[in-house]
């Protein structure tokens, strides 16, 4: 099927959220210690199926049917297990787009981070979320229609709430942090630059003195 003409200079980006939630199993029947769900959804819990044809979650080989395919939302896999491994989430786009599938890689996280292991209350789920944006560059006309018509509602929530931890607020906060970091780094850089200058001057002076002293020996 030939894809339609691509629209030059047109770039559409769609935000997505993916990752996993893991909770410790309190009654352990087998040697599985955790129950986890790996998912792919929109940051505001909105519908993303209008530009996604299917999603494949590739789990560890030890799982039965380790390639889980979903053609309709919710794009989630819930399983039990004991180990952390890399999950490959492959997103396929509708054939009208003529786009190749794109893969996301992330580790399944079951245990809370090192620093908080001790203080982690029992039964509290461990969240490992990632935010990213799919950039559709020069989409075909058909796909463009799909992308623009299918959007419903704001795609990023204004404030973080519950599971939706990525919001405009968090974006702004991160920008602030980054900006201050950049300012910090530049000031440090200037400091170091000055230090290097003074050091160079000192070196030249010392070299002079040493030369003179050596002559006088």
């Amino acid at each position: 099927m030939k894809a339609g003409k691509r629209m030059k200079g047109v770039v559409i980006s769609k935000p997505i959220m993916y990752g996993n939630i893991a909770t410790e199993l309190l009654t352990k029947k087998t040697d599985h210690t955790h129950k986890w769900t790996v998912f792919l959804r929109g940051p505001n819990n909105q519908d993303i199926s209008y530009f996604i044809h299917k999603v494949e979650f590739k789990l560890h080989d030890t799982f039965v049917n380790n390639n889980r395919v979903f053609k309709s939302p919710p794009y989630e896999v819930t399983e039990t297990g004991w180990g952390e491994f890399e999950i490959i989430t492959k997103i396929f786009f509708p054939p009208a787009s003529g786009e190749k599938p794109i893969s996301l890689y992330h580790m399944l996280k079951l245990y809370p981070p090192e620093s908080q292991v001790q203080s982690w209350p029992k039964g509290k789920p461990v969240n490992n979320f990632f935010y990213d944006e799919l950039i559709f560059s020069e989409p075909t006309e058909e796909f463009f229609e799909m992308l623009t018509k299918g959007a419903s509602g704001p795609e990023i929530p204004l404030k973080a709430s519950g599971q939706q931890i990525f919001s405009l607020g968090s974006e702004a906060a991160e920008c602030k942090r980054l900006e201050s970091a950049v300012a910090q780094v530049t000031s440090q850089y200037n400091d170091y630059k000055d230090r290097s200058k003074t050091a160079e001057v000192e070196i030249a002076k010392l070299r002079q003195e040493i030369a003179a002293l050596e002559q006088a020996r």
Partner: protein
Amino acid sequence: MAGPKQKPKGLSRELTSLYLENQPVPVALDQFRAKPKFGTKAERWVWRGFKSSARNDDLVLHHWTKANEQFTDYFYARYNAKTKPCQYTDDEYTKRIEPLDAAWTRTETDYLLKLCEQFDLRFVVIHDRYYTHPECPKEGMRLDRTLEDLKDRYYAVSRVLTQSRAQQDTRDLDDLPLQATNKLADDLALLRFDKTKEQERKRYLEALFRRTKDEIEEEEMLIAEARRIEANERRLVHEREMLIQSHVLFDEVPAGDVGPAVKVQFSSGSDLPLQSGVATPLGEHGRVRKGGPDGSDTGSIKSIKRHKSSHNVAGRHRAGSQKADAHHGAPKLSTSSVDAGGRHRTPSSPGLGSAPRVKDERGSMPPEFGKLTFATEEHLVDPAISYVSIGEGETVAVAQRDTKLGPGVFLRSDKLHPIPKNKLEAVKDFMHDLGLSSPNTIWPRPVMATPAVCDRFDSLQSTIIPLLDCKKTVDKLETEVQVLRSRRRLLVNDIGEAKAQAIREQTAAADASQDCRGQPVVVSGRSARRRWRADITARAARPAAARSTAT
């Protein structure tokens, strides 16, 4: 001792013969084959003489033959193949052959044909014996006949003869029957000889034989080059075309040339210079933001121009149609506006002369445009914008990072600038110290990879790297300072405190003023004179050094 006749159990006869003496030695008896018996009687063979038809004399040779055999011909005479060169009559000669070539006389042609017959058309031999054959006609013969000349003459004569003979047979008919024409064509094909081509061919062969080693290598390299070029030709052609295409696309504006601030005042709905020209033609495609980049603000970082407080309108395409009022409440954006997701870029403080976002979708002008107000959130902007033409002479502002994308789907986090591997760990640790980068990843990535965040993340990355380099050099320089300091201390200890002090003062004085002279010199004794001379040279060297450090 066991007797020889005893047969020990479990051992073979041969083994016993090895260790016991006086054993009977087996001897092979001569076995002759019995004489084979034939049923028939023996034939009678006779010593007979014979003649061969292949010979042209009457030599009689002898060999054994069966008595009852008839002698037909010497068995191997059949292999005496002789070629028959053409013969012509005088008539034929005068009519057909003579007009061919004036350089050949009748006698010479006859002589040539005679040689051809004698030597079976072996032209190498013919050519060799041409001038030394006993029957060579000495007069009227050119003395510079090459091999090709002889061949040429012979084949020309043969061709003419076959042609004329074939036509003669059917003189009565208008044209030759098909079979005959084919046969004629075949015969003529056999007699093809192109003198110039042959000479050329032999010249090439000779040159090929006489190539030097260098020439052979050069030729091989050229062949390899040619093969490589051919193999890559398709790819190169394709690349060239892509290059041409991409150049044509962007040739309206040089990318990155964002300088002049094209201020678009959107305070009133009517004052929209860019808008008006754009509305209609772009109607079909859904809109791309238009805007004007404002002046850039460059800190000490050159990487990406960031606009802290200026208003910049992102030229990125946002699709989707939605009333975004739900979010901000305040802005009264038209129904035709907005991005899929209510991600608003809002100007920071209205005091700076807002340049609100222009969203024009599907060709409809936002009716409430003049009344746009925005909540004062942090302004998250796209720093670098370049203009892209999308046909029909219209240009559109697109964030520069997006122009470098090819067609296809990408993840924004993949589009961060890559860090060289040897610095990766250092940068990661640094980011971690700052508390910024997302954990569990191979290379640093921001927590929330939106365009604004990614731009800032990129700029952060690209400032950290020079910082780390600078740190390294500072460390190096400072250790060098330490080393030099300790060295000086040693020298001072060697020489003595007072003297060192004096020298230090001298150095300081030299630094203070460009030319230093006028230090009193004490001259007393040889060593002192030597010291004095050393002092002079040191002093001479010092101004030079001082001048160089001062610059």
